[in-house]
């Protein structure tokens, strides 16, 4: 890693250590590239394509979260082509799911002047909320399929493998084995998936119940596990 790489980002000469991604190289140069699916603690899959940049000589745009900086590269992080892709992806995303609890994406939409009504008659993904365990709810109408929950449940953190996908294409949804309720799966309720969810699709049950208008006492009553209930009964 003692080798260094010289490239140009947005007209600015930049020297970075070998092996860094374009996203990291830009950050070192003080240039921020927007990201959605990227998370510092999970494997980058380059699937949201919000972080694409234009690299001179490349046929297509390049996802900066995985593309490595190379000597002599000339990179444009905010060209017209890049902005069109980002804006259109944001417009398509907001036409698909509920982004009301994704403030970072909302900020991006303002930045790229994305029109929330660009696809007015689009079929939205609106499955009902899955409330099948005392710890968290799954509201896939808010899910942007960033894969973070699947990854932390698997090799990126917990090695629990409770989550995977159902369907494919636009019909893809995060799911369990034959759609079983969470308590019937290998889920250990570690909460890592809830922690990395960027849109409020996964949410602690108590937070969700409070939002539904339940009082703190009612929330306690609804979410105590049998074990805790027994313990409290014995204290009384």
């Amino acid at each position, binding site marked *: 890693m003692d080798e260094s790489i010289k490239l140009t980002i947005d007209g600015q000469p930049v020297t970075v250590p070998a092996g860094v991604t374009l996203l990291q190289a830009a950050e070192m140069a003080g240039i921020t590239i927007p990201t959605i699916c990227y998370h510092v603690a999970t494997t980058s*899959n*380059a*699937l*949201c*394509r*919000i972080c*694409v940049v234009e690299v001179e000589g490349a046929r*297509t*745009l390049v*996802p900066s979260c*995985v593309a490595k900086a190379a000597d002599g590269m000339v990179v444009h992080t905010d060209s017209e*082509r890049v902005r*069109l*892709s980002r804006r*259109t*992806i944001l417009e*398509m*995303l907001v*036409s*698909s799911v509920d982004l009301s609890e994704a403030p970072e994406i909302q900020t991006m939409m303002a930045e790229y002047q994305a029109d929330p009504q*660009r*696809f007015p*008659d*689009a*079929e939205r993904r609106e499955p009902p909320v899955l409330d099948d365990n005392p710890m968290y709810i799954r509201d896939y109408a808010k899910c*942007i*399929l960033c894969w973070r929950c699947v990854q932390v449940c*698997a090799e990126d953190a917990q090695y629990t*493998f*409770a*989550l*995977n*996908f*159902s*369907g*494919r*294409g*636009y*019909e*893809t949804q995060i*799911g*369990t*084995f*034959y759609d079983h309720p969470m308590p019937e*799966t*290998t889920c250990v309720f570690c909460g890592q998936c809830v922690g990395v969810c960027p849109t409020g699709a996964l949410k602690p049950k108590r937070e969700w119940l409070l939002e539904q208008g339940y009082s703190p006492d009612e929330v306690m009553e609804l979410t105590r596990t049998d074990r805790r209930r027994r313990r409290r009964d014995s204290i009384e």
Partner: protein
Amino acid sequence: MTDIDLSLLTPVLEKYGPQGRTALLPALHAAQDIYGYIPEPVAASIGMALNVPLADVYGVIDFYAMFYRAPVGETHIHVCNDPACAFAGADSVFKRMTQTSTINGGTGEMRVTVELAPCLGLCEHAPAVLVQEKPAGRTQVQSWKDLVRGSIPHQRSIVGGDIRLLTRNCGKNRTTSLEEYEDSGGYAGLRKALSLSPAEVIAEVKASGLVGRGGAAFPTGVKWEATASAPGDPHYVVCNADEAEPGTFKDRVMMEDDPHRVLEGLIIAGYAVGARKGYIYVRGEYIQAYHTLEEAQEEAEAAGYLGENILGTDYSFEIEIRRGAGAYICGEETALFESIEGKRGFPRVKPPFPTTHGLFGQPTAINNVETLANVPLIMTIGAEAYRQMGTEKSPGPKLFCLSGDVVRPGLYEVPFGVTFRHLLFDLAGGLRPGREFRGALFGGAAGAFATPDHLDVVLSFENLRAAGLPLGSGVITVFDDTRDLYDILLRLSRFFAEESCGKCYPCQIGTQRQHEILVRMAGGDIRPEDYQRLTDIGRTMTDSSLCGLGQTAASAVLSAMKYWPQYFTTRQA
């Protein structure tokens, strides 16, 4: 839940369990052959035996269109509904079938499930259906009962052309045996290759100028060289037989009619890159080609062309034939690797490329069926003679699949350099009497439209590129002046919406939005913003999608917008 006899599954688990996750698709196929679908306890047993997390097993089952997690009819019929079959009346075939009372879970004697399917690769026999995985063509003239009983005669492949090198043994309405193949000069290419060093074989293939015939046109010799020199052991070769581009059927004909040519090409490829194992990944719908290849593999093993010490040399090589399970995306090379590894067919981020990080993360050369079929020819006649065919920049023979509104739909072999007009009128017999040529789709759903102005275009990589047309895999779907452009576009956009894997946002959502807009347009509701909407979706998918599927999913629509813009602003009759 009905009682599931898990003891029936024991042989499957014993066979595939020790192989682990890579055997997931074969195990699911075997289970479905037993139970008709994949019941939950069966999926769980397979997951345990193969050591695959159950959620992942479910993810795989639900990804592939040919795996069913709920019971289906005893007879299962797939009706192709892509353009060539639609022109020939696929919609009315489907309607006729679904109007019959005993279908879709009926309790009568014949419980039948009928479903629409993407292109079945039987375009020359349009309108085509699969009945219990058995192909049937010209279905508009078959009785429903004959179809359901599967008593449909085998369809003879229509094969022609100016030259018959790759297709020399094709079109006889039967499979070429090993003996016949040898009599026609078969396996001489392998003998020649084994008398050379692997580097010399690669040099010969490089000198021939052969480029990939699957669509990407990458120089084959360069790919082999990079794989051969990549560090790491083992190396693999893979034959991509996941032919699923709408309108394409050339690989099916080659595999069914002359399977040894494909095997010989793969063995030579294996020798060249230093692989001891090769895979052939055949699309799930091509059950006949799959069985034909298996039989040919046994013949080749018995004759010493495959296995230990091939033809008495130090070289040993084995082949494993795999079946897909209904996913166009698995024709993308990295998605195909994922599928062999027992996963959902999600394409990987490239780089790294397969030559260094391919199947199981090892150096891998992956080639299309037709590409490999060229290899024995090159080894036999030599690169110099090979280059005498075709043009300087596009040497060799090329297979074209012509279908749609032509008199003689079929597979045609020509040297690169003939005109589209020659192919269409001299070979395929032109259009039906009284009809005019209106356009053609070059390269399948991922391709672009040609207009009457393109009739004299020369069929070579360089000339097509200059004309803005993709060669793709050599598929040309012709349509006449009676066809509805909206209907054609609608079928293409539906194909992509159904076949997108859903990994990257531009394609996952873009294919869906593109389809919705085209459905609305076809219904007569065209809005002033639609042209720009389709342009932006198309540019975003082309520029920013993760793999080749997404990058070409708007190609046909964008080319239609270029040649027939009026269709996208006002409803045309």
